[in-house]
């Protein structure tokens, strides 16, 4: 079977579990390194970003007084690190439900026959810095909200503008995040921001594979933990002839993957393995788990061809 | 002791050695002409006769050289590169690491490992520049036997040069040098440096720290060895009767 087909199956299964698991009693906890959105009624697990914001804001202050909350916060942090250490970016490419939705958009674009747009390196770098802004927001804003310096309606600031919060609940029939919230001025602006962020990410992801992943603070967090990660994409430069098939097939347009270097898992890489499938040199690109090869490019593999 | 024979059916000469054990007991050569096998056979018979042996005394025959395929007598046929390596390694008592063999129409550069196996080799492409043919043309032109070349070259007083490595062009260059009154020795010296340059062009990149062994017909020429030393900047050694190394190597490869 094509590795990409296997990935698709895993994506669909993950989607089912993470979006509807709660309905059959599955809940995978509050530290998932992907957009398993807590705003989806009956979901099967929570995105760690929500917990992180909650603990940084509420938990941090309450924890100083109570002590117990901080242990819970640390506990979930350890779970998060462990999950990332185990699967790394596979969370992004293979599990994240929001990633799958973006892949549907690419599929749709291909169906219509519209070309994919590629970002110039400068634009890409500029847009990529948005994820650090988001990360900054996740760390800085919650304590300010808890300290009542910022209004309480900004609670879970990243979630309030996260496109996942608008899109994913729709699949469970929850449409309320679509509407502009007119409760007060803050909610008005926050909901307008959400609609705009969602609209632009979806339009963007239609024209450019997984555009939103460029902005994703979770992707950055996972990348920071790369030294601990057991599952990683590895390149053997001495087998690479520099044909560029990897780069042309890369969803994230990782620019340096075809260069004469070993370290190719850049911050934007989502382990989708399209590069390894496209690579015509045996063993040049591999997915390794604790150094053990799980999948490797092969000159004999023609399964990915559209016959 | 068993008697064995090795034929080297080269482009210029046919060489035959007869051995007893690993010892060479007879050597002989004759210019190459049509009917190579018959020539080799009569050379062998001549050798056996001189040794007082019957013609069926030879237990095994090995052949090498361009004509090896034409030799039905031979039990084994091996390529001359390997025969050269085996022969010279043995005769140099395991010292040779680089061989420069100047044959009738080719130049071979052979690198040996410390077991005497061929580690690498080069051979000139279709061009007689620097080969034995070059010497023959010169000998005919100057009406001087090859055996005189070394001595005449050492007597050279004036320095002249042959600019062309091509045998054909060099020949006409020599004619005009003769017309200008250049001494034979000067022309021969120029020939030697021309050959040395050609060999140098083939092997300047190689590692020659342990010296090279000159082999093949022209290897008896001490002045040529000197010219090669100047060109390659390394010691050039030669065997006593270098033209028989390859035929001897062929015998050694008989089991």
């Amino acid at each position, binding site marked *: 079977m094509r590795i990409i087909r296997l990935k698709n199956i895993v994506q669909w299964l993950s989607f089912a579990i993470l979006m509807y698991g709660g309905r059959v009693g599955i809940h995978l906890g509050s530290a998932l390194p992907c957009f398993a959105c807590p705003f989806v009624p009956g979901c099967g697990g929570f995105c760690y970003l929500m917990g992180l914001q909650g603990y940084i804001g509420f938990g941090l202050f309450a924890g100083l007084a109570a002590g117990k909350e901080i242990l819970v916060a640390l506990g979930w942090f350890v779970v998060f690190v462990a999950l990332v250490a185990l699967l790394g970016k596979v969370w992004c490419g293979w599990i994240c439900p929001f990633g799958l939705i973006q892949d549907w958009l690419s599929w749709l674009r291909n169906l219509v026959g519209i070309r*994919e747009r590629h970002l110039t390196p400068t634009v890409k770098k500029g847009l990529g810095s948005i994820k650090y802004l988001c990360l900054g927001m996740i760390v800085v804003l919650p304590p300010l909200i808890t300290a009542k310096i910022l209004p309480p309606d900004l609670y879970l600031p990243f979630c309030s503008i996260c496109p996942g919060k608008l899109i994913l609940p729709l699949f469970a029939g929850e449409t309320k995040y679509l509407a502009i919230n007119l409760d007060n001025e803050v909610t008005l602006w926050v909901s307008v921001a959400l609609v705009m962020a969602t609209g632009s990410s979806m339009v963007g992801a239609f024209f450019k594979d997984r555009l939103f992943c460029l902005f994703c603070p979770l992707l950055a967090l996972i990348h920071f933990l790369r030294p601990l990660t057991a599952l990683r994409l590895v390149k053997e430069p001495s087998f690479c002839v*520099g*044909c*560029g*098939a990897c780069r042309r097939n890369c969803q994230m347009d990782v620019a340096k993957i075809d260069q004469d270097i070993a370290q190719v898992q850049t911050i934007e890489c989502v382990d989708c393995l399209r590069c390894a499938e*496209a690579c015509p040199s045996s063993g040049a690109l591999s997915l390794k788990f604790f150094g053990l090869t799980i999948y490797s490019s092969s*000159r004999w593999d023609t399964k990915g061809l*559209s016959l | 002791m068993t008697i064995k024979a090795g034929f080297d059916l080269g482009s210029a000469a046919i060489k035959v050695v007869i051995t007893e054990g690993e010892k060479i007991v007879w050597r002989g050569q004759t210019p190459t002409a049509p009917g190579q096998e018959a020539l080799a056979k009569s050379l062998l018979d001549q050798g056996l006769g001189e040794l007082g042996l019957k013609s069926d005394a030879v237990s095994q025959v090995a052949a090498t050289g361009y004509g090896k395929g034409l030799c039905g007598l031979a039990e084994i046929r091996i390529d001359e590169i*390997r025969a050269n390596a085996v022969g010279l390694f043995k005769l140099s008592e395991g010292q040779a690491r680089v061989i420069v063999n100047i044959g009738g129409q080719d130049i071979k550069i052979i690198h040996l490992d410390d077991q005497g196996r061929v580690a690498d080799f080069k051979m000139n492409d*279709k061009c007689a520049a620097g080969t034995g043919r070059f010497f023959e043309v010169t000998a005919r032109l100057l009406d001087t036997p090859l055996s005189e070349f070394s001595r005449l070259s050492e007597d050279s007083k004036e320095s002249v040069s042959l600019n062309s490595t091509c045998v054909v062009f060099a020949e006409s260059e020599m004619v005009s040098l003769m017309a200008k009154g250049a001494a034979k020795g000067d022309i021969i010296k120029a020939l030697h440096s021309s050959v040395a340059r050609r060999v140098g062009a083939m092997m300047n990149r190689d590692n020659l720290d342990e010296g090279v062994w000159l082999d093949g017909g022209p290897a008896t020429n001490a002045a040529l060895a000197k010219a090669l030393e100047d060109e390659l900047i390394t010691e050039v050694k030669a065997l006593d009767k270098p033209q028989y190394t390859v035929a001897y190597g062929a015998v050694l490869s008989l089991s």
Partner: protein
Amino acid sequence: MNNTENRRDRLLKKTIEKVLAEEKELLSWLKSRSDYQAELDYFLDITAARGTAEIEARVGRPVLNLLCNQVPLELIAAAGYQPVKVASGSLAEASFAAYSWPALMCPVIKGVLTKLEIDKAALKAPWVIPTTCDWVVKFWEARKMVDPSPGEVKFLELPHFRQETESQSKWLSEVIKLKEWLETVSRQKIARKDLLEAESALARVFVAVTQLKKARQEGRLSLIWFLLVIGSLFYDLPDQWAQKVTELINKLPQTATTGPKVFLAGSPIFYPNYKLPILIEEAHLRVVADDLCSSERIFPPVGPLEDTSIHGLLASMAGRYHQGSLCPTFGDNERRVNNILGQRNEAGLVGVIFVVLKGCHPYDLESSTIEMTLKNQGLRFLRLETDYALEDRQNLLTRLEAFRHSLSGD
């Protein structure tokens, strides 16, 4: 004047006879081989009948001639043409060219110039020429001497640095212009559907080529048959050819030939000049992989399609045929050697034979850089310089035999 023309015509007539004799000799030798089998007849037949008119009758679409392996075959096919890479391995054809052209010229180009005089229909077909080596760049000028009113031609200005972003976008614009040019000469639009169909057809051919490579690596198919079969690709419809290859593969023996396993690199080897492959076989060496542009590199590997819009398909083609080409005319081709090193363990390589056709300067230069790299990696290396003439057979065989012995270590 009349007299010279007469002489030239007579010479050409004699050349045609010699070409036929060369092919006939090879053909009867091929058929007498112990590994000959009936399934190979198909490929022998289409190779023998490779004149432009014969190809057009067989495939039912007009021929478009091309040189080198940077022209996207699927784009030509999508425009309704049969892409035919023109080449010549004929000694007689190359020798005839000496009538007009320099002796040290590339024998392939010499042969092609003569071929054009023999196959008049090839003159009138449209041509696509990427500017690879000097011989190819100057080819059209020389060709105009053969026929002062040549047909349509499209030059693809090939940027000689395949890893540079600017070169890559320049090449993409060349490929886009090629599509527009094809639409003009064929008077029909190339639709997305046409491109997708052509891509799929080439993918099926690639699957067949992969089977051939596998069979050769396993020792079930000799280099000589491999070269013949893969070279006949241009004379047939892709699906028909792929089908016949599969039939051949299914009938190949399971027993493998033996001999030290070597990689064949360097200048291309074209039908009917199988001098080197024959000598390699005589020396009991077994070629398990190669990177000749007439053989394994006949077109770049086909991969999955990511962006199937027209622009996306053109961009993927542009990348494959430029960045993915290991042609020695590129100025940043250092990683070409990784194609050999990467197959070393997989194919069990012990040595590399590098062929330099006399007059083929890019390969000549690369032979030195590759030799140094490979020797540093502990692989044995043999460089052979030759042309189409047969006189050096003995000299080459001596080297190949000594090389084989140095590989088997005795």
